[in-house]
């Protein structure tokens, strides 16, 4: 009946007048997309395609690539070992101060990485809270490859923990009950039921974590410094070369990082969608 009192609306529908295009948001959306597209176009445009291989083949570039792979994979490994149990506890165990711990483990995602690096230095540096003790037993983390790994882990692990925690939280616990009644102990239940059920999220979390570790810059340079072959990872190499002797090398290695990020994104698209 409400329709009868609004004849104009009815006629418009009946005559099939097309909806006016939403011009304003369209223009803004294009501008927004350009913000992402332009820098990438610049990178591709300025890339020294002809000499790319020579640039990649220098000792410093190869060192940076090798080091980046080692540190980012190590950081991802540590994140899996520490992060999977942490995510499980956060999802399944209730204890006082849980929200605080969640905030704490999420913090590195929003904290400026440089601040993370400073904090790591104050904690694990030679005069730091814990580093002081480590120094006495002859362990020194700053300005070592191990230091770079720790910096990357600090920044990247939250991606794994948050992704996995959500998955543990939403998986059906009654399946775990069923497994218990079938004779499976807690660990078997975790290995054969809980973990397989969250596998898509685990993969997504691991890949995100690794990509973040690979791209880590601020915390690494602050805590681990910039020593070729020891702590100079790809992002550090790119920054130093761009500022200094060899902008072409910076551009080529930027492209390498771009390609890796792009592949990760494409690979994750389905995982993300099916995991949700």
């Amino acid at each position, binding site marked *: 009946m409400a329709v009868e009192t609004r004849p104009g609306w009815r006629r418009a529908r009946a005559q099939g007048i097309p909806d006016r295009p939403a011009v304003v948001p369209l223009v803004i959306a294009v501008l927004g997309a350009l913000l992402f597209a332009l820098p990438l176009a610049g990178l591709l445009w300025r890339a020294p395609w002809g000499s790319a291989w020579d640039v990649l083949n220098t000792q410093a570039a190869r060192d940076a690539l090798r080091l980046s792979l080692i540190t980012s994979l190590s950081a991802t490994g540590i994140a899996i070992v520490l992060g999977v149990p942490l995510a499980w506890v956060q999802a399944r165990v209730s204890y006082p101060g849980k929200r605080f711990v969640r905030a704490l483990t999420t913090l590195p995602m929003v904290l400026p990485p440089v601040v993370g690096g400073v904090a790591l230095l104050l904690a694990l540096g030679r005069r730091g809270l814990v580093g002081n003790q480590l120094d006495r037993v002859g362990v020194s983390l700053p300005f070592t490859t191990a230091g770079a790994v720790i910096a990357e882990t600090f920044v990247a692990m939250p991606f794994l923990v948050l992704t996995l925690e959500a998955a543990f939280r939403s998986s059906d616990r009654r*399946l775990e*009950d*069923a*497994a*218990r*009644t*079938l*004779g*499976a*102990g807690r660990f078997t239940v975790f290995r054969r039921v809980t973990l397989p059920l969250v596998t898509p999220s685990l993969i997504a979390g691991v890949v995100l974590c690794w990509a973040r570790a690979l791209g880590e810059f601020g915390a690494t340079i602050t805590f681990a410094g910039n020593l070729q072959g020891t702590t100079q990872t790809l992002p550090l190499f790119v920054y130093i070369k761009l500022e200094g002797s060899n902008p072409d090398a910076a551009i080529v290695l930027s492209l390498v990082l771009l390609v890796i990020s792009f592949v990760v994104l494409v690979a994750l698209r389905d995982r993300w969608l099916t995991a949700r």
Partner: protein
Amino acid sequence: MSLAAHVRIELDGFTLDVDLAIAPGQTVAVVGPNGAGKTTLLRALAGLRGLSAGRIELDGTVYDDPDARIYVPPEHRPVGVMFQDNLLFPHLTALENVAFGLRARGLSRGEARRRASDWLQRVGLDGRTRARPRELSGGQAQRVALARALASDPAMLLLDEPLAALDATTRNEVRRDLRRHLATFSGVRLLITHDPVDAAVLADLVVVLDHGRIAQTGTPAEITSRPRTQWVAELTGTNLFTGTSDADGLVRLEGGGTITAADHRAPGPVFAVVQPRSVTLHRVQPEGSARNTWPGVVTTVEPVGDRYRVEVDGTPSVVAEVTAAAVHEIDLHEGVDVWVSIKATEVDVYPA
């Protein structure tokens, strides 16, 4: 193999306190309204939750006794559970689901698969060993769940609403299968259900649970013919009255009104049951031999099969089941004033 259990579980504002004994080869159905504590009882027996007090003894072995600090976790209890919604592992095939318990209990992969395959054959699913749970129909999934629960040869089988998630046709089919498989299982069986048909077809003994306590125990026939809870009376569609009987068989009902039974017993608190088919309705006050007559107002008239179910609001209110002819003859419809009459010989009175 027999079960002797006293289960007491205290939760916020709810206490489950149940004594249960099940003989080997006996199927006990636990029925009751939602929130009566049925699932809590099952979880306690399976070891998925601890007792506040009590004792669970199966085959002479104590699995739970808080006073003696005994608690055996679920994986070490010889108990098979068939869950509501089947709860098959979605990432495993039908065969792997059935083999899961055998593997977890230490069998080799090959032996576990061989036995699982036998079990799938026994439940008629040998062609579907490689199917994932989402590829199975509801009935097939429930049969895999039964095979999974029975495969590791438990001493006690717990069935939690095994037919609730199925459509009517499949339910009848699976119920028939279940009956057959239960008959070949020599251990203790406990079935949780809210469907009186399940209880009648599958169980030897029915336990009615209400507010965490056992309200009634009996054979399915006893429970339906002489219910002791309104919940059962409503499910089976009978009229259940509670009141106090005097020496002459006159029962003063709790909600007002009286009812007289021909065959009366000792005075005291009683239940009185009247089958809806024994209730007759009239438009004028009947003269005759019926000793129970009172006026009322028709509130609903609905067809049930070839008859009509008529609810009459009065003191007491009552449900009658009458023929279509009667409905037309005296023009029964909502809001009509009627007289209810019940012969004293049709009133079954038993002590509360």
